[in-house]
């Protein structure tokens, strides 16, 4: 294993790998190494030394950090100024039984957003700029360090969800948001998936600006009859009486207030950590969620993002059926936790239509012409 602690050491390493035509795996906290196609026994580039907050300007709503900065460190620094990252980065380490430290770049590179994505979007909506080393061994910059910028191509978008296949990140600048002082969780219990998701969509399309909307069937939550619609509300002022009243007005029925926030365990997949089988995340149009849930016909599942994200655990033999179900509703089934064999066979996502796949490949080569970085993972 090689270690690069500075951007110039990263560039040196990449240039050497380029000369040798030797692909490698990029590792920092290592919590997400077992996601996507296994890379085999490639040499490792350990960038965990590229860590630390470089500049935090609360009044400018931006933070610049080295990519391997632990999420915990970022969250703590932001919380001190009553701010937070917009994309609600999800730490998958409990789900994946990893004891490493989840990092900023790991979360963004895997597009790992939790339940709070509803409010301010995903990593791609928050990453303003970055510095990275491309496959030529050159350091380059994309985006900027201001909150509003349309200068040149929006390369930060590409870095989010690329699973480290385009470049080695060496610095990242994120937009941050105020952290609301008040939170309330409401639970509409004993509702069918059909009715539960309909209730969540009603809240999603209200003016309540919800921060979490999930449906959990009885198999995933105790004492909720056939299932529960969970609603997370936030506000800067007062203990949210008005928003709660509005939610009651929209949904009627008997919603009760829940003290404990279940959304961290929902958005991070922790709820599936001890369940057997492969764990999937299926992204669908929210109104397709009840249909997809029914057709899936698995015991352990839940719907986050008002139905836009279905989590489930299923036997490895179900892979083809799950992929087809997602494709039928124009969704995307992502295989998050599975054996190396399953991940090799099924990949992270279903194969794209040929024209799109060719375009994606051309873009990949535009950054990394020799396919040195995490080859095949995405």
């Amino acid at each position, binding site marked *: 294993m090689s270690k690069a602690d500075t951007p110039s050491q990263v560039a040196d390493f990449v240039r050497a790998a380029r000369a040798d035509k030797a692909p490698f795996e990029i590792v920092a906290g290592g919590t997400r190494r077992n996601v996507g196609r296994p890379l085999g026994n490639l040499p490792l580039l350990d960038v965990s030394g590229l860590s630390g907050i470089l500049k935090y*300007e609360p*009044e*400018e709503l931006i933070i610049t950090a080295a990519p391997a900065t632990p999420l915990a460190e970022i969250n703590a620094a932001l919380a001190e100024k009553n*701010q937070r990252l917009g994309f609600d980065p999800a730490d998958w380490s409990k789900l994946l039984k990893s004891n490493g430290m989840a990092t900023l770049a790991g979360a963004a590179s895997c597009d790992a957003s939790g339940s709070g994505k509803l409010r301010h*979007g995903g990593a*791609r909506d928050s990453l303003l700029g970055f510095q990275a080393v*491309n496959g030529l061994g*050159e350091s*380059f910059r*994309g985006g*900027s*360090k*201001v*909150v*509003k*910028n*349309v*200068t*040149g*191509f*929006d*390369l930060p*978008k*590409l870095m*989010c*969800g*690329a699973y480290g296949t*385009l470049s080695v990140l060496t610095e990242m600048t994120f937009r941050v948001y*105020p*952290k609301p002082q008040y939170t309330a969780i409401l639970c509409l219990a004993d509702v069918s998936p059909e009715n539960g998701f309909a209730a969540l*969509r009603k809240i*999603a*399309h*209200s*003016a309540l600006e919800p921060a979490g909307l999930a449906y959990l069937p009885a198999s995933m939550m105790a004492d909720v009859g056939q299932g529960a619609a969970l609603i997370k509300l936030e*506000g*800067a*002022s*007062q203990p949210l009486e*008005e*928003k709660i009243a509005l939610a009651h007005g929209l949904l009627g029925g008997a919603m009760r207030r829940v003290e404990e926030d279940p959304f961290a365990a929902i958005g991070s997949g922790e709820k599936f950590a001890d369940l057997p089988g492969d764990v999937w995340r299926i*992204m669908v*149009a*929210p*109104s397709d969620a009840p249909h997809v849930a029914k057709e899936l016909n698995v015991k352990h599942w839940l719907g986050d993002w008002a139905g836009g994200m279905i989590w489930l655990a299923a036997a490895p033999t179900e892979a083809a059926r799950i992929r087809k179900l997602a494709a039928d*509703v124009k*969704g*995307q089934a992502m295989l998050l936790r599975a054996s190396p064999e399953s991940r090799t066979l099924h990949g992270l996502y279903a194969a794209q*239509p040929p*024209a*799109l*796949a060719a*375009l*994606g490949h*051309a*873009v990949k080569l*535009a*950054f990394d*012409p020799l396919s040195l970085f995490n080859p095949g993972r*995405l």
Partner: protein
Amino acid sequence: MLLPPSDSKIIARRAQIVAALQDMVPDGVVADRSGLATFDSDALSAYHQMPLVCVLPSNREQVSAILKFAEKEGVPIVPRGAGTSLSGGALPREDGILIGMGRMKRILEIDYENGCVVVEPGVTNLNITKAVEANGFYYAPDPSSQVACTIGGNVAENSGGLHCLKYGLTTNNLLGVTMVLPGGEIVTLGGKSGSQGGLDLLGLVTGSEGLLGVVVEVVVKILRKAPVTRTLLASFDSVPAAGACVAAIIADGVVPAAMEFMDKRAAGAIESYNHPGYPLEAEAILIIDADGVEADVSYAVSRVIDIVAKCGGKTVEATDEKQRARIWSGRKAAFAAMGKLAPDMICMDGTIPRHALPDVLEEMAKLSEQYGLGFCNVFHAGDGNLHPLIIFDTMKPGEFERAEAFGADILRLCVKVGGVLSGEHGIGIEKRDLMTDQFTTEDLAQQGRVKCAFDAQGLFNPGKVFPTLSACIEQGHIHVHGAQLPHPHLPRY
């Protein structure tokens, strides 16, 4: 500003190209001089160029056929929405096909269940809101040209507006597009599920200024209108006090729906133009919107009033919807109102870190003196997006050139203090030659390679955004020695 030289061999084949396009789009080819004159410019009106021919397709199959033909024949393509670009993004080429998307203006689907609308690219920004407002929804990005500008153009430019501090730019309100790639292939990026199962090409294509393909269908998010919106007008005795107030509001955790800054000269010109009721004695004013549910809005308004007072300012609140509309009508007419000050105006667009505002304003005043030209400032204060308006008179020899040079210096200043060349208008041809001030050769070479991944022949909107056209075959990079670009004797477009 120069465009790359046109190819006389293409121009010589004009009749044949026109005939081929007429076969593809029998009722949608504009080839006569007077017809083409309509399309010879966009909102960067100092620049004019007649296109070789203009074609107005009605469906994606026609777009695909046109792009396939253009690739085979090696003819440049310039896409155009409503032609409202302020940076010259839709400026035609003498040797290029202008492809106008205005006929594709159907709203295909309104999906309240999923909070989205599927439209063709020629639908205007405002017509999306109009289609859903009876049900209490709207489309959030609101560029000042929203009556005219099309959603396809908004995607190409990643358009912003007054309310992007809270609601984001086009890219944050977009779920998917279907686009025709150079060569005619049709791909769909994203969709109602918002996912692409691979690289975020949707994010890349948004704001790519017509360099990567032609969008033929767009899926946008719609939002529920906030039940309460309140508008405050704050006035200050000094510009730095107003700047400090903006920083203090943000630091306090309040996110106004909009926060607009105007200096005394801008406010005065607007006041005499459409009388919105701005205080003329103030050195700087802020217009601040707070929206949301009643309790959150009351809280935000009370915080803002407190903070303004602490910064030495005075606040007035619009008492009713009519007064609210009046205050905003002034801001929205800012560009038109500049006619009160001088015959001509150029509107610049750059973003700075907010803390640099006092220094930047001071520096701009010095530049104004140096160039002997007046200017005033309107500014999306919340997100640091400056719109200095330079006023001049084209009839006076040399003034236009001086105004352009003054504008370029302002943008260089934005970059120098850590900001960017464009917050929302795009680069186009207007700021193209300044790209090297913001980006290194390596940065630009990387973007150039991305361009090549889509458009290996370099036929899409050539001469826009990037100062030099790199040959895609090299796929390599240019070496820079010191600050010197290679081949300094070569013309740079």
